């Protein structure tokens, strides 16, 4: 049940990010839209890894291996989430770098100003 809520939240966040990305003219806001979308995706990843009544997949005195198999959340999506987050951050950094250059080139951040090439 709980993971369904998380999943819904993640997907909603993706939609909100997309909405922001498509409606806002300001490049920084567009980048924020992308970040929201990325975060939504990460939440979806986590939701997918959830196992009913799960706990962290760390084997110690509190959680034996046999117990973990029935009770630990899926470690794979968690591992993937780490990678996905790093990559998301990387992409955001590049976008911001370009946003700076775009601003320097035209002194504006409106996406509508950057339509040099067409047809």
């Amino acid at each position: 049940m709980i993971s369904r809520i998380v999943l819904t939240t993640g997907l909603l966040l993706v939609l909100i990010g997309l909405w922001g990305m498509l409606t806002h003219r300001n490049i920084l806001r567009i980048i924020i839209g992308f970040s929201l979308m990325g975060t939504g995706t990460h939440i979806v990843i986590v939701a997918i890894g959830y196992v009913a009544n799960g706990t962290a997949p760390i084997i110690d005195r509190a959680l034996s291996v046999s117990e973990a198999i029935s009770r630990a959340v899926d470690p794979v999506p968690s591992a993937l989430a780490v990678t996905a987050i790093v990559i998301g951050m990387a992409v955001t950094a590049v976008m911001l770098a370009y946003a700076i250059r775009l601003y320097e080139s035209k002194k504006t951040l409106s996406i509508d100003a950057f339509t040099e090439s067409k047809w």
Partner: protein
Amino acid sequence: MIRRHSIIVAIVSLGLVFASLVIGYTEQQAARPLAESYIRLVPQELGAPNVITGILLTYRAFDTLGEIAVLFMVAASVGLVLGREGPPRGVPSEDRPGEARPSSEIVQTGTQILVPLISIFAAYIIMNGHLTAGGGFQGGAVIASGILLVLLAYPQYQPNLEFLGITESVAGALFVLAGIAGLIVADGFLDNRILPLGQFGAFFSAGAIPVLSALLGIKVGCELSVILERFRP
């Protein structure tokens, strides 16, 4: 107006697709076979209690290596794009906010107190990655947060980019070298069993995972710091 409507239609349609996902979703009642294998294998074969770290630094270490490459490339890309690799561009001084106004004493004092703590915390996260929640990436990010704090508090502070660059290069190369060692000593590229597995749950255990974790932490910390530095006006 047409544009706005078409955006609405697109988002709503995508929402319907997503709705079908939510409706079709059933919560997992037990671990999937692959996950189950990992939960068995990581403690047993790799000697690491934290299954996720085990996956990240051995079974999917190739991904991790790729991620380091991504971060490394971002640092280079941002450098290329913002043109900060060579001598700094001639930016008029009035365009540089912060040069005129140093941050307040509160921030500076807070930074002085916090940065050592942050560093220790980062080291803890990095070094205990194989035992408990944490790992190189997380710790590296914490390191970078410390650097960010320093940059905010002391706008004039110039981190030693050369040092950071060499460190990240060496850490990356060592990571690859550890991978090659796996080829020679253990069962394959990036195998963690190049060092003894040690006692399960001990600090020095899980083969090369703590070492890799440390390298990763150092590298990520350096890279994030370099990226932050490049973004400074």
